[in-house]
């Protein structure tokens, strides 16, 4: 009884629950010491070059080419994964067939499989002597050790993100809306294009953005398959490693800062996208 009394007496405060200071304090402490301070070390390091030096470090043709390769190919991979990810999600959600659960489980493989393992498997597969590479070479297509190899690895590692963001939303949209549209006389194509797709757009964009972010930073699976030719198939993270091997800490950090800035902007855009999506649901 007294408990109810207490509840009546207490004003509805936002601090009814205990542990706010403790949990937030720990969160901020852990985040600051393990992530923010080390990232600060990265951001400050290139300044020892001066602003001109910083600009020179990232504006060499080789660095620019690697950034273009990493971000450009990541964009292409995100587009490819969005298309196939949507088709896969559609098939998994809408169709019933034997082996569907297995197919569903396999989607997360790139996520669970270590990138080094993916790297040696993909490069063996797509080399001119490999299962797929030997077929493609007949048509004069080289994948391993070309920028196409980078694309293949990126498509592999970021596929789960596009499928997994679209899938639950697609399941939620349900048949009733489509049925309503159909009753109103819309054709199947119209229903998909005018009703389903607009509802799916935020999820597709979110998935694409996550796929892009993951692919742009990827290292382990790509270095085995890319061939790593400067200015042709050399990705930005590899160039960071190479700069480091030349004892150029500031130069390596400068590229790191560019990549960090890109991923931070990406995340802000993603958060914006998600709140926009929340408003449109």
């Amino acid at each position, binding site marked *: 009884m007294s408990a109810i009394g207490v509840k009546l007496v207490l004003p509805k405060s936002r601090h009814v629950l205990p542990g706010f200071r403790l949990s937030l304090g720990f969160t901020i402490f852990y985040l600051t010491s393990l992530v923010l301070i*080390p990232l600060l070390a990265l951001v400050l390091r290139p300044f020892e070059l001066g602003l001109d030096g910083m600009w020179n470090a990232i504006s060499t043709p080789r660095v620019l080419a690697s950034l273009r390769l990493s971000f450009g190919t990541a964009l292409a991979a995100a587009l490819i994964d969005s298309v196939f990810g949507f088709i*896969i999600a559609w098939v998994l959600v809408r169709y019933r067939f034997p082996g569907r659960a297995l197919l569903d489980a396999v989607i997360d493989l790139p996520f669970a499989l270590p990138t080094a393992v993916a790297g040696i*498997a993909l490069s063996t597969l797509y080399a001119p002597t490999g299962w797929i590479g030997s077929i493609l070479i007949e048509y004069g297509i080289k994948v391993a050790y070309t920028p196409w190899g980078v694309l293949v690895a990126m498509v592999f590692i970021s596929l789960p993100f596009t499928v997994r*963001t679209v899938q639950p939303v697609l399941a939620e949209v349900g048949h009733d809306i489509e049925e309503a549209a159909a009753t109103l006389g819309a054709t199947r194509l119209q229903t998909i294009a005018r009703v389903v797709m607009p509802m799916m757009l935020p999820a597709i964009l979110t998935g694409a953005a996550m796929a892009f972010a993951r692919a742009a930073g990827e290292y382990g699976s790509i270095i085995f398959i890319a061939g790593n030719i400067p200015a042709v198939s050399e990705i930005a993270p590899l160039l960071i490693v190479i700069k480091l091997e030349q004892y150029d800490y500031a130069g390596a950090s400068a590229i790191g800062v560019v990549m960090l800035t890109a991923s931070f902007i990406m995340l802000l855009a993603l958060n914006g996208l998600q709140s926009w999506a929340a408003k449109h649901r």
Partner: protein
Amino acid sequence: MNKIFSKPTEDPLWLKLTLGIIAVGFIAIMLLMPLVLVFKEALASGVRTFFSAMVEPDTLAAVKLSLLAAAIAVPLNTVFGIAAAWSIAKFDFRGKTFLVTLIDLPFSVSPVVAGLVYVLVFGMQGWLGPTLAGYDIRVLFALPGIVLATIFVTFPFVARELIPLMVDQGRDEEEAAATLGASGFQTFMRVTLPNIKWGLLYGILLCNARALGEFGAVSVLSGHIRGQTNTMPLHVELLYNNYDYTGAFAVAALLAMLALLTLALKSFLEWRYADELAASHRH
């Protein structure tokens, strides 16, 4: 099948078949073939070679190191994930969105950058390296560095899983428990935990899979000392670069089996608590 064809809201059969073939084909070529290849190459020189490659001392040391690093990093990130989710989901404060963005940040940072930042802090050319060396404390090229890099790349996994779940569940139940006189710890153990346990497990699973498989970040600061600072993925690279393909693919197969185990557990969790999970996946 032909009956379904007549339904106005269903895809026509030809479309179903086309999409089905595209989806299955894409998954088979992009995902399954690499997996099959790993096992095929691992067993290429026979089962005996496969197993002898597995019990090689350096391989065992790599397995041990990877498990140890994960065993330290995953619980720490789990505690962090719970604390972060508790503060973010159960309380209102300013800058919450920004905090969530910062927590997400390590997810989209390149693993190489993750390794680099610790080199810049703890390296002999970095901020703390020379000072710590004076006290004979080694971070890089030893277990602490490997653990730090692992923590960084798996940082948001538990938090990302728990935050949407706990936001979705609201704070009424906990508030009721608290007003009934339960202590904070009791509230958490008896009210919150049962509600989030499957989501928590799911997050830990993802965190663990990534921790065992991390390559780029660890590669920058491991030092590659055979039998001492080589993790499993680094050992795969080392064997691969040593003409020991069977060995490399044997360790790769071991990692692939761990991945498959993760997927199986994950599917089980998804099946077991489909409702709770749906909340966390609603972006």
